[in-house]
């Protein structure tokens, strides 16, 4: 089998719900009166916006949608014409190009922001991105500064938590100014409660791929679920999506059905996908009957599968902990090694694929060291390079050769259990 077919209710429901979400963005752009806030994926505090009925707009999601639809290159080029470097993050370039292109995309008209909420959660490019948007749009910006995890324990300090909480109170004040109404604490608790239930379901879904065969691909199918996780988290629709997804994927797991006819290799994958060539990339693994059982990329917005859950009784505290501790982007690079090790062990994977993207140095800088680390530990590890947004960095023939050679080589290696795969 060389081609993958997207089937099942969850894919259809995702399309339907995301279409509704994008329709709301377009309505806002056309003057529906619903204010929009731009924010970033890393550990996002979307619940706070929900409490104010502020529409969340994720420029990263918009950028990747452009890439998936093969619409990103002209926007990237128009940003480069403005002076952006070929070495700058192409998400930013596509977004800036799209902004100056009238905010018109094939999926929505993106509204002007009422607030630029820069949740600085690890990624330093976020700061540049939203700084530029602030300069270009002239709209109010809020820097939500999240101290990076730098302790040996891998936990934020009590000073870090207090600092973030105080900033969240300022952010609430800013939202009150924009909407002209005070925070309804009950509504905040309700959004956090919905997020809590959603996160729990997402965690259960993540754990389903521990089974053999995995009922879905934890990279290529997870990305389908990530859009609702961010754009709809904290809403009844978001929860409904994850109830449907969990029920469907659990049923597949119970029935022993995987995404491919046969599961020959179980691998962990690190790094964002090459959005402009997603299908081609997926098929390179499918032809080897290789299924991703875990992916680091699916944890950029939150790391629910390792025990995090929002707490409606302590809404702001749990939002602060989500921002600080419970997402990949604010964790240090060695914590990612630990995360991958857990996946390899607990999800029973026998290989690691590192997709190194030029745009995102948060992910990629130092992945050669990561390869060295896992190779020395006896984990077959492949590092391939392309980009998450810029289609010019993807060499299909070369990529296929590297992936073919990798699976060819490990096909004859003994596994941890002693048998060849």
């Amino acid at each position, binding site marked *: 089998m060389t081609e993958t077919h997207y089937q099942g209710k969850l894919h259809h429901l995702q399309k339907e719900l995301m279409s509704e979400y994008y329709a709301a963005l377009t309505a806002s752009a056309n003057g529906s009166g619903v204010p929009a806030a731009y924010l970033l994926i890393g550990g996002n505090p979307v619940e706070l916006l929900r409490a104010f009925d502020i529409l969340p707009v994720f420029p990263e999601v918009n950028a990747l949608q452009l890439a998936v639809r093969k619409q990103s290159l002209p926007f990237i080029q128009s940003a480069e014409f403005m002076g*952006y*470097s070929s*070495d700058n993050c192409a998400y*930013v370039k596509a977004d800036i190009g799209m902004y100056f292109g009238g905010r018109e995309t094939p999926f929505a008209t993106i509204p002007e922001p009422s607030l630029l909420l820069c949740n600085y959660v*690890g990624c330093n490019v976020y700061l540049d991105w939203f700084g530029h948007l602030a*300069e270009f749009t002239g709209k109010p910006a809020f820097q*939500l*500064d999240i*101290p990076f995890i730098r302790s040996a324990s891998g936990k934020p300090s009590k000073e870090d938590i207090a600092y973030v909480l105080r900033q969240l109170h300022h952010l609430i004040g800013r939202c009150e100014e924009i909407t002209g109404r005070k925070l309804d604490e009950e509504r905040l608790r309700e959004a956090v409660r919905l997020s809590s239930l959603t996160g729990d379901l997402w965690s259960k879904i993540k754990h389903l791929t521990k089974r053999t065969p995995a009922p879905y691909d934890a990279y290529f199918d997870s990305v389908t679920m990530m859009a609702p996780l961010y754009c709809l988290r904290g809403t009844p629709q978001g929860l409904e999506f994850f109830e449907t997804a969990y029920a469907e994927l659990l049923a597949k797991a119970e029935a022993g059905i995987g995404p491919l006819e046969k599961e020959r290799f179980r691998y962990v994958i690190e790094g964002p996908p090459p959005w402009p060539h997603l299908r081609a990339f997926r098929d390179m693994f499918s032809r080897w009957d290789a299924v991703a059982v875990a992916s680091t990329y699916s944890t950029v917005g939150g790391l629910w599968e390792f025990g995090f859950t929002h707490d409606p009784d302590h809404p702001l505290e749990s939002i602060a902990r989500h921002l600080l501790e419970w997402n990949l982007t604010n964790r240090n690079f060695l914590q990612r090694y630990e995360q991958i090790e857990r996946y390899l062990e607990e999800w029973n994977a026998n290989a690691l694929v590192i997709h190194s993207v*030029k745009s995102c140095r948060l992910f990629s800088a130092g992945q050669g060291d990561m390869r060295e680390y896992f190779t020395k530990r006896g984990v077959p590890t492949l590092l391939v390079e392309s980009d998450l947004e810029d289609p010019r960095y993807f060499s299909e023939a070369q990529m296929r050769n590297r992936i073919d050679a990798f699976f060819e080589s490990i096909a004859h290696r003994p596994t941890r259990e002693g048998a060849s795969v």
Partner: protein
Amino acid sequence: MSTQSIAQSIESLVEYCDRIIEEPGFAAAVAWKNAAPNRATIGCFPVYTPVEVFYASGVLPVGLAGGGNRMEIAHADSRFQSFICSIVKSTLEQGMTDLLEPLDGLVFHSICDPARNLASVYARNFPETPVEYIHFPQNFEAEESPRYLRDEYARVATFASGLSGREMTTDDLRAAIALYNRVRETIRRLYALRRDAPHRLRTRELYPLVRVGHLIPPEEHAELLADALHAAATREGRERDRIRVVLTGSFCEQPPLDLIAAIEDAGCYLVDDDFLLGRRWFTENIPANVTDPLLALADGYINASLPTPVKHDMRVSPSELLVERARSHRADAVIVLCAKFCEPSLFAYPLYRKALQEAGIPHLFLEFEEKMWMFDRVKSEIETFVESLLFD
């Protein structure tokens, strides 16, 4: 070597600095450490380190400035990809070739993603080397940011004391702030002198005078700078037909000295720059004799530090500041000199470009790598730019 024993001309001071900068092994720092008990050294990655906190704890902060153009990167290339800037790789390479052996620890900061990941990679590859990481606040508007940073500095002081075996007292910190104030104030005066009379002090001379502070104790640096200020102020010089240029973009990875010289030789007076920005950092002295000097130092970061693309202070527009800087320095042009693959620097450029164009200030965009060693092409590019302005 004391500056007292050498002739007090700019040429001899620069020669002295050049020699120390060229020497591997951090000899001056090691000598300082061995001169008394409870002392240690720490390597500080750019851009800014709260040096006072280390020095007051008995730790000499040594500035890391990459590998220059004489280092071949043979090992670190396999750890960091081709699209990562050179200083990240050359710093790791220095570790892998034992060149950082004389240092007792390293400190990195939240300046960019590769530098942050380097902190982790370094710690993994050198588990015996204590590695610290400082998260500088990026919310400049929140009233609690100085307090947060104060707590961060207190944490760093504990780390520093662990290296030296000596606890920092408030008086130690006050003394360190006063000492580094003296260093920074003299650098500011040298920068002002160069702005007003660039023919008296070339940037190729000013640069090593500042950079040597990466490698020698601050008392010695303060003396050396005072000597240099005196020598430059009384120096004879003849003004040449050159354009006045503000240079920006080189605040982290450093260009080769020969590139700085080539820019000047191509017909430019560099009247302002952001080389080695961390050694100047503040726009004014930090109050030392206050109840909580740690808070004063943190407050200085938030409210009295120089603009740079690794700080995102939403209260100001970086591009407007650059235009103002060009005007206040009576610059004919701006050169944006970015390290290859340096995201913060490259991201700053589109905004600079727009603002400079709107202000009618000519500019030239150039990229460099610390390891470059041929300068003919870049010199010729700058010469063409200079000629286009001189003969406009």
